[in-house]
C-alpha cells in the first residue's frame, strides 16, 4: 500500500502544469521530489491528498483511487495523511495547542484530556513543549513549521507530505527540520514525500530523489544515483547550472 500517480495531467486555464506524471512512493521510504519552480512539485503533492483533482490520470492512496471517493471517503483517506504546508498554514486565531489538536477533534472517542496529552506528546516530538498557549504570530518561522509538523503527525498518519518545509529558513533551522523529518520516519515509521528545491536537504533525508521537469518525472533514483546521473537537465539542476537546462526538453 502506498501512493501512486498514474499518467496525471493537470492544467490551470491554458497553462499545463502536470503532463503525464507517473510516480510511485514506496511503503516506508522518504521520497524527495525536486525540480525548478513551476515544474509541478506542489501541484503533484496536492493531488496526493485530493486537494486537486487531475484532468486526466489516476491517483491511488493506500490502494484507493481518489477519483472514486465521495467527500466522506476522501476525508477517511486524509485521516491517514499528514500534510505539512510550506508556510505552516496554522490558524491565526487558535493557539498552538488548539491548532495541533484540531485534527484530533475529528476522531471519535477522544476526550479533552486525551487530546491534551496527545498534543503535548506531539509538541515534545518537535521540541516545542511549553508552547501550547502561544499564538502562531508569537512563533518564529522555524517554530511555526515545527508546529505545523506537530499538527500533521497528531493523528498518527501513515503518510507525511512535506511542501517545501525548509524554504526561507536559515541553515541551522533547516538542519533542525531535516533531522525532524528523519526522526519522524525512524520513530513513527511513516512514508514521506518531501517537496524541496534544496538538494542539501534532499541528500540528507531522502531514500530516493525524483526530479520533475516540465510536468513529468525526469529522473528517479537514490541520492548516489542522482549524483552520478549524466542527464544534462538533472546535472543542470543539481549543480545549479542554468546553461545545461537551456534547450533541454
Amino acid at each position, binding site marked *: 500500500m502506498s501512493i501512486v500517480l498514474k499518467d496525471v495531467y493537470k492544467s490551470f486555464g491554458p497553462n499545463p502544469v502536470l503532463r503525464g506524471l507517473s510516480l510511485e512512493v514506496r511503503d516506508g521510504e522518504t521520497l524527495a521530489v525536486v525540480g525548478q519552480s513551476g515544474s509541478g512539485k506542489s501541484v503533484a503533492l496536492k493531488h496526493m491528498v485530493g*486537494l486537486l483533482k487531475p484532468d486526466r490520470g489516476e491517483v491511488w492512496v493506500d490502494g484507493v483511487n481518489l477519483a472514486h471517493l465521495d467527500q466522506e471517503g476522501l476525508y477517511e483517506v486524509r485521516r491517514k495523511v*499528514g500534510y505539512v504546508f510550506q508556510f505552516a*498554514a496554522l490558524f491565526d486565531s487558535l493557539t498552538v495547542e488548539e491548532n495541533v489538536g484540531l485534527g484530533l477533534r*475529528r476522531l471519535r472517542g477522544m476526550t479533552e484530556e486525551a487530546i491534551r496529552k496527545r498534543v503535548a506528546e506531539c509538541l515534545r516530538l518537535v521540541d516545542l513543549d511549553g508552547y501550547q498557549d502561544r499564538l502562531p504570530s508569537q512563533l518564529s518561522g522555524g517554530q511555526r513549521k515545527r508546529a505545523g509538523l506537530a499538527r500533521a503527525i497528531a493523528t498518527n498518519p501513515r503518510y507525511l507530505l512535506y511542501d517545501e518545509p525548509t524554504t526561507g529558513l536559515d541553515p541551522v533551522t533547516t538542519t533542525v527540520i531535516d533531522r525532524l523529518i528523519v526522526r519522524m520516519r525512524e520513530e513513527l515509521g511513516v512514508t514521506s514525500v518531501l517537496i524541496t528545491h534544496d538538494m542539501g536537504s534532499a541528500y540528507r533525508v531522502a531514500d530516493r530523489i525524483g526530479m520533475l521537469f516540465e510536468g513529468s518525472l525526469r529522473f528517479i533514483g537514490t541520492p548516489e544515483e542522482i549524483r552520478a546521473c549524466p542527464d544534462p537537465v538533472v546535472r543542470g539542476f543539481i549543480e545549479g547550472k542554468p546553461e545545461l537546462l537551456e534547450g533541454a526538453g
Partner: protein
Amino acid sequence: MNTRFLNTRFLQDPLQLVGRSALDTTAQIGRWGGLITATLKALPKVDIWGRLLVGQLARIGVDSIPIALFIATFTGVVMALQASYTFTGAVPLYFVGALVGKTMILELGPVLTGLALAGRVGANIAAELGTMRVTEQIDALETLAYDPVAYLVVPRILAGLVMFPVVVVLATTTGIAAGWLTSLQLLDLSTPAFMKGLRLFFQPWDVQFALIKSVSFGLTVTSVGCFFGFTTQGGAEGVGLSATRAVVVSSMVILALDAFWAATLL
C-alpha cells in the same frame, strides 16, 4: 478602410465588454448558488459548526451594535428635524411621530443597518476567509478532514440570519427614540403628541416586513462575504479585491432586495 475598421472596433468592444460581463456575472451567481447548496448540505454537521456559532453571533451581531445604533441615532434626529421643517404650517406637527416611526421601521432601520453591516461584516468575512485561502489555511482544514464550508461558512451565515434582525430592531428602536427626544427638545412637541403620530399609521405587519428584510440582508451580507473570501486568488491584492467586491455586491443586492420586498410584500 482604416476608418471603417476603427468604427467597427468602437462598436464591437463595448458590446463584447457587456457580453463578457454578463457571462461573468451569471457564472458568479451560479458559483454563489453552489456555495449556498454546499452550506445547506453542511447543516447536519453540527459537531463541526456548533462550537463556533456563539463566537460568530458575538462578532457579527453584538460587535455591530455600536455602529448600527450610532447611524440610527443621527438618522432619527435628522428625520424629526426634516419632518418638522417640511410639515410646518401645512400638516399638524404630531405627524413627525408618524413619519419617523413609519420610515425607520419600513425603510431606514433595515436598509441603513444592512448597508453599514455590509461594510463592517461583509468586508471582515471576505478579508478573513480570503487570507485563509491564500495562506492555505482552508486547504489545511481539508487535510484535517474538516468540511471548510461547515467550519467557516455555516456559522457565519447562521449568525447573520439570527443577528441581523436583532441589530435592526435595536437600531430602529434607537432611531425612533432619537426622533422622539429631538421632538421634545427642539420641536416643542409633547410626548403624547409624538406617540399619537407614531400610532397613527402603525401596523404590526410593518415590523414583520422589517424583519423579513433584515433576514434577507443578513443572508446576503454573510453569504456574499463568504463567497468572495472563498474564491480569493493571489496575495494581499486578491484579499483587498475580495473585501471590496463583497461590500459593493452586498450593497447592490441589499438595495435591489429592498425594492423587491417593497414591490411584493406591501
